[in-house]
């Protein structure tokens, strides 16, 4: 689609400063305002080519919103804008302490099935992981502000690890649901 807006970066699209801290209320308001104008349902009675274009614009706005709304995606996107490739990010070395914590958390998740009341323990674990993610988000924000890209990338990888763990917790939850 040969349009100016597709080459805009996501922050520009929503008229927000390029930084990790995002006012989610403002982001949400601007997102809804854009969709009010661009969503294909607004073109329900329009010609086919206009509908197609609306689908593309709307999908672009959705992608931008999803990226900026989620802290991990936002962090990765900021690194990408700073010229760091995904491979470079994932090559970051992690300290041993963090990896040991990871293993312990994973172990707790794996033994969940044998417990009498897995729900409560699962909720507790999810809270713990979410708290850790918050800590690394703060690390990222500080490092990125100081243009310490390596440190920022390292915080980002830790967030990635923990998010993955959170996904696994959800997987276990759906297995519990089907039981």
């Amino acid at each position: 689609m040969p349009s100016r807006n597709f080459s805009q970066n996501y922050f520009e699209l929503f008229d927000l400063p390029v930084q990790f801290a995002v006012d989610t209320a403002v982001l949400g308001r601007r997102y809804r305002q854009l969709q009010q104008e661009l969503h294909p349902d607004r073109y329900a009675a329009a010609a086919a080519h206009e509908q197609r274009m609306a689908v593309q614009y709307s999908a672009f706005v959705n992608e931008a919103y999803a990226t900026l709304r989620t802290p991990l995606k936002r962090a990765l996107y900021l690194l990408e804008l700073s010229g760091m490739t995904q491979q470079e990010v994932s090559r970051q070395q992690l300290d041993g302490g963090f990896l040991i914590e990871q293993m312990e958390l994973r172990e707790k998740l794996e033994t969940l099935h044998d417990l009498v009341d897995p729900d409560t323990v699962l909720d507790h674990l999810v809270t713990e992981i979410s708290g850790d993610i918050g800590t690394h988000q703060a690390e990222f924000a500080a490092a990125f502000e100081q243009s310490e890209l390596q440190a920022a990338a390292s915080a980002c990888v830790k967030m990635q690890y923990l998010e993955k763990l959170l996904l696994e917790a959800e997987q276990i939850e759906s297995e519990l649901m089907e039981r």
Partner: protein
Amino acid sequence: MALMQIAEPGQSPVPHQEKRAVGIDLGTTNSLVATVRGGRADVLPDADGSVMLPSVVNYSDTSGALVGARALAMASEHPEDTLVSVKRFMGRGRADAQRDAQRSHYRLGDSESGMVSFVTSSGDVSPVQASAEILAVLRERARETLGGDIDGAVITVPAYFDEAQRQATKDAATLAGLRVLRLLNEPTAAAVAYGLDAGEEGVIAVYDLGGGTFDISILRLHRGVFEVLATGGDTALGGDDFDAAIVAWVVDELNLASLRPGQHRGLQAAARHAKERLSGAESAVLPVDKIVPGAGDLTLTREGFEALIQPLVKRTLRACRRCLRDAQVEEVDDVVMVGGSTRVPLVREVVADFFQREPLTDIDPDKVVAIGAAIQADILAGNRPEGDLLLLDVIPLSLGLETMGGLVEKIVPRNTTIPVARAQEFTTFKDGQTALALHIVQGERELAADSRSLARFELRGIPPMVAGAARIKVVFEVDADGLLHVSAREETTGAQSSVTVKPSFGLSDEQITDMLQSSFSHAQEDKQARQLAEQRLDAQQLLEGLDAALADDAAELLSQAECEALHQKMRELREAAAGDDVEQIRRLTESLGRASEAFAARRMDKSIKQALAGVSLEELDKEISE
């Protein structure tokens, strides 16, 4: 010479006509149809004044199916010919449906496609066909009430329906001669009905427990925008399971070893009545002796009933918890109750306790979904002024690809807002590999074998390279209807391939055409005439849209030359559309559409700027008022 039509700038030459659009709640137990008239949405009653059509189809009489209350009356006498709760079987494979079928005493037919069909006195019947019978009755009801053919329908489905179940629902509509404007998720429809009525703002949870399905959705409502934040549920949990729990209890208490199908149906009906009475009364008598002579009657207390259904109700809360987390919200401002099963006091108590909110029940939980669907149908048919209401929906289940070792790589995770386009790069794993098989799956499981298979296709013509050197970009696109299109492209050579997903348990287009021809005479209209009419309509829509757009923005966004070029093409198309050369109209429509794309893009850019300017003003207002 043809008379020239002269229209005011910005006005369409054809007077705007209200389209007859309806919303249909195709429920497990009951189905309803609603429409918007004079700005008000309401459900349409049949000739006897009842709005609920029991979702029951009886095939005892080989000359034609009975639908609704009359079919329900045949259930005990002809259990195998009377299909109830067919929604449970929509889009499901034979093996998958076996357990439910046994419980309902249906005989399943053998079909090569692996699709479910029931053996009845009138031959094999698929769930899609039975649903089409129900939809056709509702379509007829709407046609008679509104005084003309229905232009389009919004049909609701459980939010948790997968692609196959959605496609089966669409097939049923096509078979019933209905044009589907959109499949709308039931909880979203309910939120629309509530949100518009009460002018709600904030985060609401919709707890929808119907006859056979449970759905939970969390939405954010803001100035007419309904943003679905997350959705979840269970496609096989509902009020029917409450009935089944009571029947199992009766069988156990009275040691009823072998029951005839008719007796089983009788017990189910008695259980349902007892359940309904227990919403108000403290105890209810089950007249078992009338159904199984000599067995004696049983009394069920509310306490006893609640103990029976407690595990089922608890199962819904787990889904609620996950949905809240997916939505990334801590608490909700309101809880809306939908579905007949939310009349059960225990359900209301448990839900109020979980969300810490007294649930809203102002709108009849049986009608709320159909009313919301009617409102959305009115909008999609173009009957409403713009800026009224917008739905931003999500995909309910993750979409992904099978990768090495049978694992699933999720490309579009569940609860992603649609429309969406996502790309991911893959590579070859063998030296010299020239083709790549892509297997598209749906669901949350890690193994492809445990997921719902949606489609397979191949990318060929990859030049032989060492393993890992090829760069294959796979793009998943989901449009606003939730339909998936997948394409794959090898980046170095440009070899590409794509597929639009048709689930394996749906009907093929040929099957639908065959069925249409055998069951509906209007499908045999002259194909040529229909093509011409459709092509003219396309042309007319494009011309009307451009007229309006040019009137608004031509001076600002187009040069004189650009403007004249467009007008020239529009004149050509107008002339062609007055004739009957289908091919020429199609060609000129295409050509004008392409020529106006740059203009359309500029208009969209302008909209974006205006939208954001609007936001800034809104923010300014806020600051001033604070």
